[in-house]
């Protein structure tokens, strides 16, 4: 914000530069993949803070897959599997064994940071990145064309994933049951839904989406695995869900907004502006906090969010 005021006159430059949209999409894609998963988990009643660990594990396992097989598709599957493994532990521990979901999530984050850093140092995987795939025609749209349609093909997976997530959550029985698990688990329970099973499944889906985000980071963006390279973006995805008021539209908007603030550093560099380096790094986190101050109390969260379900207790 402060940076924006300081360079008020240059705002137009930022808005009209293709670089802005390009870097925003690079950050926003990762956030959006993870945020869709987090949105599903939260609609089913879990604040899944192990999302950071899921992305990190996905990023590492996809690097591992790329290193061992050299095939990008297999590497992507490895990434999905990595996220799913973390999701499995989180789901089983918090919704089968009934352990506090924050405690499990936090421990998994610490474990993921340590384990991936350790394995990375021991194995040193080499990654073959995907390169870009330009979609002719669409990529020629001014301003946003290159950002949306001249990127790694993993980014294109996001476009069908958004309507798919909407369809599954709002137009299938399974999605209805998931939302019920987040809104009114007691009612769902008496109507025969296995609440904790649905919550576990939602966390698994979150693991898959976050694994995809991790694979995107490694294969599509950096082309290598960096220890602790997710650096808090999982938590920003979490904030995007709150920003979006627990709606899919809002969550995606949140991913774009926070993506923009994350990209601001590289945009300023590309346009030749000077700005405080630390402020630019901290900006997405500051914005996430600031938007939560506005939206967290305004929008209605899933009624049973972060409340463990135990039959017979209210």
């Amino acid at each position, binding site marked *: 914000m402060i940076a924006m005021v300081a360079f008020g006159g240059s705002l137009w430059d930022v808005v009209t530069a293709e670089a802005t949209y390009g870097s925003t999409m690079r950050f926003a894609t990762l956030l959006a993949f993870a945020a869709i998963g987090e949105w599903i988990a939260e609609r089913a009643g879990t604040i899944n803070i192990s999302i950071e660990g899921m992305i990190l594990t996905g990023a590492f396992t996809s690097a591992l897959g790329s290193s061992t097989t050299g095939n990008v598709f297999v590497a992507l599957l490895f990434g999905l599997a990595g996220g799913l493994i973390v999701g499995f532990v989180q789901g089983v521990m918090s919704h089968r064994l009934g*352990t506090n979901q924050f405690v499990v999530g936090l421990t998994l984050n610490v474990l993921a940071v340590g384990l991936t850093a350790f394995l990375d140092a021991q194995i040193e995987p080499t990654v073959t990145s995907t390169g870009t795939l330009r979609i002719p025609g669409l990529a020629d749209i001014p301003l946003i064309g290159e950002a949306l349609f001249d990127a790694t093909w993993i980014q294109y997976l996001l476009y069908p994933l958004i309507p798919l997530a909407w369809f599954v959550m709002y137009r299938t029985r399974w999605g209805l049951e998931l939302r019920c698990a987040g809104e009114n688990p007691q009612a769902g329970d008496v109507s025969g839904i296995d609440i904790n099973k649905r919550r576990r499944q939602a966390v698994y889906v979150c693991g898959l989406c976050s694994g995809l985000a991790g694979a995107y980071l490694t294969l599509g963006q950096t082309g290598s695995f960096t220890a602790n390279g997710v650096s808090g973006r999982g938590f920003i995805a979490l904030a995007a869900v709150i920003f979006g008021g627990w709606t899919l539209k809002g969550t995606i908007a949140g991913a774009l907004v926070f993506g923009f603030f994350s990209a601001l550093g590289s945009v300023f560099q590309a346009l030749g502006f000077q700005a405080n380096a630390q402020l630019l790094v901290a900006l997405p986190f500051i914005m996430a906090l600031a938007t939560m101050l506005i939206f967290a109390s305004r929008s209605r969260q899933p009624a049973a969010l972060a409340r463990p379900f135990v*039959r017979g207790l209210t």
Partner: protein
Amino acid sequence: MTATTSSGAAPAVVPPEGSPPSAAAPTPRRTSRWRRAVPIAITYIVSVAVALALCALLVSITGGSASEVFSALIDGSLRSPGAWGLTVNTAAPLLCVAIGTIWAGKAGLSNIGQEGQVLLGAAGTAYLATRLEGPGFFVIVVSLAGGVVVGGLWALLAAVMKYTRNVPEVISTLLLYFIAIQMTDYALTKRWLLASLSTDSRVNNGQPIKSDARLPTFEIFGNSISVGAVIAVVLTALIAFALARTTTGFRLRMLGLNPRTARRAGVSAALVGGTALAVSGATAGLAGAIWLTGGVPGDRFTSNMSSNIGWQGLLVALLARQRALLAIPMAFVFAVLRTGSQFLSATGVDRRIADVVQAMLVLALLVPPAIQEIQRRRAKGEVVA
């Protein structure tokens, strides 16, 4: 009754125990408690063994030797001369972080941004310790207090956001951590804040802290132990006492166990909970101060110098499962792993295996209580999903 063996018998024993009238209760109840303790102990032993075995497997798969790693860990933290001192000085900040986390946890609050509070606490201490003039004792007390205040204020920010704007503290404390890193990094670029006055180093380093502003140490059997360890243990005892025996502690526990009852009893969630968050931040700040002036290798504030003290202290609190005094041995175990890991380079295994062991231990110790709870509910005839 006597025919039932201990393994897996715990759930089966309970219903016949509950049904007979209370006249015959005392003696059989005592034996059954012992009988129940055995499978509980077994689940703990098995889950810790599984966690350690997994770590050993991990080391062997990646080409190391698990036994070498183990002996290097013990050599570095306990066996080599003076190692106890290092370990105890590392355990002190971990304990400070853990005890504050337990305090907030009792109120039902999950402060998980201690890493940032530790960092800022250390920064506050560094600022005061490098600037204040005067006798050593005065400088030490004031700079430690500065660290406590800065850490507490940082957590208070999360408390204000929680109670005025409904922002979950789980997320806000985490996000504040990432902001804290950038704030201290910024401070390290400015001379009027924390940056070193010498112009020769390109790396951003803090100003050196004078030796009389560092915590005094004392010698026990050739181990130099910082006063910080004493501070941490006394603090732990105080908080354990406050939780168990004072009105404040009672209010805190009531708020954590049942917020609705607490409100009816006149406990203000914002006041008691907000203070609890600030206290947990303050002890994390103290941890940073102790780490800077009595534990850290080196004599100055550097970028990201909290180096996981906050995260590990948090894990200690989770391991202690809300029991304040249990945090002392747990902090020591973690300190053993941490200081021992510095000695791993000779074995060719990356030192971050220690982080893996720590997290695996926590995960392993989360399982047995959960299994007990499920068995207890099954025994009562509830259908457990």
